[in-house]
């Protein structure tokens, strides 16, 4: 199977107010095409930085990255990367439909016509039928993020990068949006890489969970999640889910902490 994302030995140094900060050191991960993978780690571990390097929003200090076999810059210019920000990042002067059409406006209508999915189909896919002409300010946070998902899919990217996309939503909406996202991902056939700091979210969504440790940021564990697809909320009560969550927690905190702090970790699971 071909690799959609291949990160090899990537390091990233920032110059923050004259002080050198080592955000990433020797980070590596591979994601086969068509999979759903996630990166989990505590705040400030460099997981968002890693995602931005893959997206060519930033360039690494050392190491190499390939997206769909090409350097990130080329993949970005070929519109092979869709990026979903933590905030919906919509243009408030554009309606729902116009926001989704923004990528088509930028590549030009001529090449946009080659797109397999029309804006109307995308609106249907993310469940916003009837809201085409609404302005972003008239939508809830969850609906705004649906618009941004449709926009990211407008040019059929090979890779979808998600930077804590539902972090600002309440828990109930967040669960519903995660189910929606899995359905959309399955229908669109893209590769997805999700950055999150929720253990249960990472397990529920992913084929593989990449665990990061901070200072300097690096991938410390790679855990395959053996839950069947399509995923359903009922699986969150299964033994397999529980065990996977514990594995991720062990990888994040180390076995000692997880055992001596057993009560606390049991509470966090639910």
């Amino acid at each position, binding site marked *: 199977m071909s690799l959609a994302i291949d990160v090899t030995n990537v390091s990233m140094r920032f110059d923050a107010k004259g002080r050198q900060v080592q955000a990433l050191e020797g980070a590596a991960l591979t994601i086969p095409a068509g999979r759903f993978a996630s990166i989990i780690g505590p705040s400030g571990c460099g997981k968002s930085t890693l995602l931005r390097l893959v997206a060519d929003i930033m360039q690494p200090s050392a190491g190499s990255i390939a997206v769909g076999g090409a350097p990130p810059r080329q993949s970005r210019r070929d519109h092979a990367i869709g990026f979903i920000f933590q905030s919906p990042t919509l*243009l408030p002067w554009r309606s729902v439909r116009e926001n989704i059409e923004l990528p088509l406006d930028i590549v030009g209508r001529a090449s946009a016509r080659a797109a397999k999915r029309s804006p109307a189909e995308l609106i249907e896919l993310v469940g916003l039928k009837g809201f085409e002409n609404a302005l972003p300010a008239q939508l809830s946070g969850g609906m705004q993020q649906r618009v941004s998902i449709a926009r990211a899919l407008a040019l059929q990217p090979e890779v979808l990068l998600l930077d804590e996309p539902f972090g600002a939503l309440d828990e109930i909406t967040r669960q519903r949006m995660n189910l929606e996202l899995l359905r959309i991902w399955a229908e669109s056939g893209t590769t997805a890489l999700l950055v999150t700091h929720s253990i249960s979210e990472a397990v529920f969504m992913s084929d593989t969970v990449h665990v990061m440790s901070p200072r300097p940021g690096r991938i410390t564990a790679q855990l395959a999640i053996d839950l069947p697809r399509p995923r359903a909320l009922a699986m969150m009560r299964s033994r397999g889910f529980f065990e996977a969550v514990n594995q991720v927690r062990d990888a994040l905190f180390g076995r000692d902490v997880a055992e001596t702090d057993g009560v606390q970790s049991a509470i966090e699971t639910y």
Partner: protein
Amino acid sequence: MANPAAADRLRRTLMLLAPVLALLLALLAAEWLTARRALPVVIPAPSAVWADAMKNPAVVTRHLTPTVLKAAAGYAAAAAIALIAAAISSLVLVLRAPIYSLGVGIHSVPLIATTPLLALWLGTGPPTHVLVAALACYFPMLVGAMQGFAAVERNRRELFHMLSASPLQQLRYLVIPSALPYLFAGFKIAAPSAVLGTITAEWAGAELGLGALMLYALGAFDINKVWLAVLMACALSAAAYAFWAGAERLVIYWDSAAELRD
């Protein structure tokens, strides 16, 4: 009221009508008080000012029109220069501070002091009046444009980077719409200043204009004419502001305040 939409509409209508009602009340009060000589200062009855204006309407248009044209010309020139200066300052970062400082300098010098100098150098013709009008209204527009061009949210810039948008596309789809609320704020505040600048310059010497009318009327102790000129100056300032406030309502249909709350 049972219907909240209707209640909201009524509230909006009242808010729009409030200044008009207040003005009418003030006029009525002035009329009533002057008729009874109940005021400690000399104020002509509004009806007397009106009758005086109607006796010779040509005086009104002869002096109002040049002031309107000169204020508009100075305003347009200042707006163009402010937009260009703000664009340069957002592209060439080393020029940002000097461009802003020059604007502060222009704004800080009292025009009432520089106008006589300009009149000495350039004469008391319309060019001086237009120049002073432009100097008076330049700074708010510069600040609005500079803030506006810098108002693009970081995430949105990254979005356009991800979409590999060209600089021209960024300007059209992102920078200009993001700047519009700030531009309108600056344009709105600057509009009455252009009127003030024109009249100030006319005071230093002019054949025609509201400032000239004021001086003539003061010299002749024609109180009705003085008041007529004052009221026309006020109305012109208010109209200039209202023009841009109305344009803003038409152009900015989205909730730009929501942006600032986020």
